[in-house]
């Protein structure tokens, strides 16, 4: 299991960013499915948090391609290690939209806290990602 967060280096206005994220999601869903990777993506204006689960070698090569992607920066690994059971067994990727007025501010705050290196903020992100899956199971079928 691997959880990391990063800053969004996608330029342009909100529409451009939304397009970019859609594209990232589409590619991630396809690639991760092929590689047996599941997980969740939290995206909020300036930052991403992503939790990935799957075979270690597949995770590491996915992470390597993320690291080579100029759209990310300041990548920070929150957690990397073995996992007894997947938290996200059913679906390949989900995200919190900035238009989501309930979750977006909380996600924003958690991401900022993590990037500022506040202790405990990583756990908050993971919990938030898990909650997201429970609430938005429909992403699985998309």
């Amino acid at each position, binding site marked *: 299991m691997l959880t990391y967060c990063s800053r969004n280096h996608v330029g342009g206005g909100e529409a451009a960013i939304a397009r970019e994220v859609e594209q990232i999601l589409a590619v991630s869903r396809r690639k991760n499915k092929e590689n047996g990777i599941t997980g969740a993506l939290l995206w909020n204006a300036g930052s991403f948090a992503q939790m990935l689960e799957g075979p*270690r070698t597949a995770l590491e090569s996915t992470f390597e391609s993320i690291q080579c992607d100029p759209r990310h920066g300041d990548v920070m690994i929150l957690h990397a290690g073995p996992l007894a059971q997947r938290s996200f067994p059913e679906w390949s990727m989900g995200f919190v939209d900035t238009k989501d007025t309930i979750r977006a501010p909380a996600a924003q705050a958690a991401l900022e806290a993590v990037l500022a290196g506040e202790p405990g903020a990583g756990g908050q992100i993971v919990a938030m990602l898990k909650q997201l899956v429970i609430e938005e199971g429909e992403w699985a079928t998309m």
Partner: protein
Amino acid sequence: MQPDLDVNAPDSGLAPGGSAVQLTGNIPQLALLAALQSSGKAIILFDADLRIIHFTNEVYNLLGTALEADLPASSVMALLQKTQLDSASLAAAHQALANMMQGRGPTSCQLSRSGSNTPFQITARDLGNSIYAAFFEPSSAGPAAAPLEEADHITGLAMRRQFERQLQDRLRECHPAGVAVMLMDLDRFKQVNDTYGHQIGDVLLHRVGERLRKATRQGDLVARFGGDEFAVLLSPACSREEATAITERMIDLIHRTYLIDGHALNVGVSVGLAFAPEHGTDLATLLRNADLAMYESKRQGHSRACCFESTLLNNALTRSTNERDLRRALPRRQFELYYQPQVTVDGALCGFEALIRWRHPERGLIPPAEFLPVAEEIGLMDQIGAWVLQTACKEATKWPADLLLAVNAAPSQLEKSGFADCVRNALKISGLPGSRLEIEITEGAILNQSPVVMSTLQELHELGVKIAIDDFGTGYASLSQLSQFPFDKIKLDRSLAGFDGNNLKKRAIVRAVTSLGHSLGMTVLGEGVETAEQMERLKTDGCSTLQGYYLGRPSPASQIEGIRAQWATPGEPDIDTEGNGNHNE
């Protein structure tokens, strides 16, 4: 000759020859692997990092190897290295794989096994979805594949020879927009290799190579010169701005965390840039200048890029003159020792610290900060250190027996095992009792708790020699470290001790250190004392001894007698006229 099969190798049939990636367990995939296996062909499936996903048993037979059971963790190259392929074949195979991944050049080549003259062929194919395959077949009688430029085993990048040949061609063409070269060294790669082993180090080098490729453009040549040294030849007509942008992208990408075998690893890269014709029109000059620029990047603090400037060359020339002169300094007796008094807070002389100076025939007296780093770099530190110890010990035998001699030891001296012997020798030659010698070490020397340093300090203690920790409060040492080794003295750095005014925070730190020091049985000395007010304050805050210009500047040995006359020594001032250390109380 048919090689022995590894007894651990699984049978053919449904059980695949080996799988590194945990397959998701659906039937079609297993069936595909079984079909692959039953084809009787030697095939390796792998991912973009050359990690093996699956291979067939025929690979064992064709390549001739005793493969270990731990194979699944390794890469295609690691597997091929365990076979009986000769080194030229290994390089050629790697190049074919690399060509295929980059979608250029020949993707198949002839291979030969040592001790066998039936050649066979490797063909690399991209199967899509980031899965690649290498097919091995006995060679057809057709014409041999075109000879390949030899590639670096670990990264698949070009090697120095190919790089230099292309650079040479480029320089000959005299492209009007010029030629740009970058040389780079990884920062902290050695630590990765030392900590995690060469196998992980090699995967890291491969990843670095990949990232360099991604940061550069089609037509740029990326090469590995060996070790952690890489080079890039930018394609013609590359402007300064483009070169700068590429450099920034490289530094950014290389700097990002790597995840390898469950370890999160970080390295940096220091880059040197040089452009032809401004910085040289021939290969050797251009590469030397790029190299000088790279060293400048390292000097400025790593993970950055510098472009060559003529001052770098001048500095390098000055440095080499310095080096030459420094090598001659010891045989020509140009080093001198100066001695600075150390005094108790009650105003009694208690010892001298020996400080080295270099009397340069043209430049005059040079302080240690200007030449010791160079001496360290060119490996003269041990010789100079031994000279200082012997000279100072001999001098100290002329002093009363209650005066201590303090001598500095550089981290590099302590890190080698011979330092305690060097001290023992100096004591023996001079006849100075070990209890009158104090070795000052820096915080950096004990930072890593290296076993060699720790055992050296222990040996010194057994000789009765005292250990002082120098410049305390500037570096890495924490209060907790003080309890881990029985230091005899803490020398509070001048920044904590020799300040003016009433800085309450600093004073609180000083009081904490003196109180801890005293309760651990250590003397605390305040350094850099320049005024009576500072002296009084340090006395109030618990220091027991002091050193600084206010109490006496470093002076040549000839002036020691005069200095001693100005101070009362603790107890009765009593001069040992015999000039030996066996002074009776």
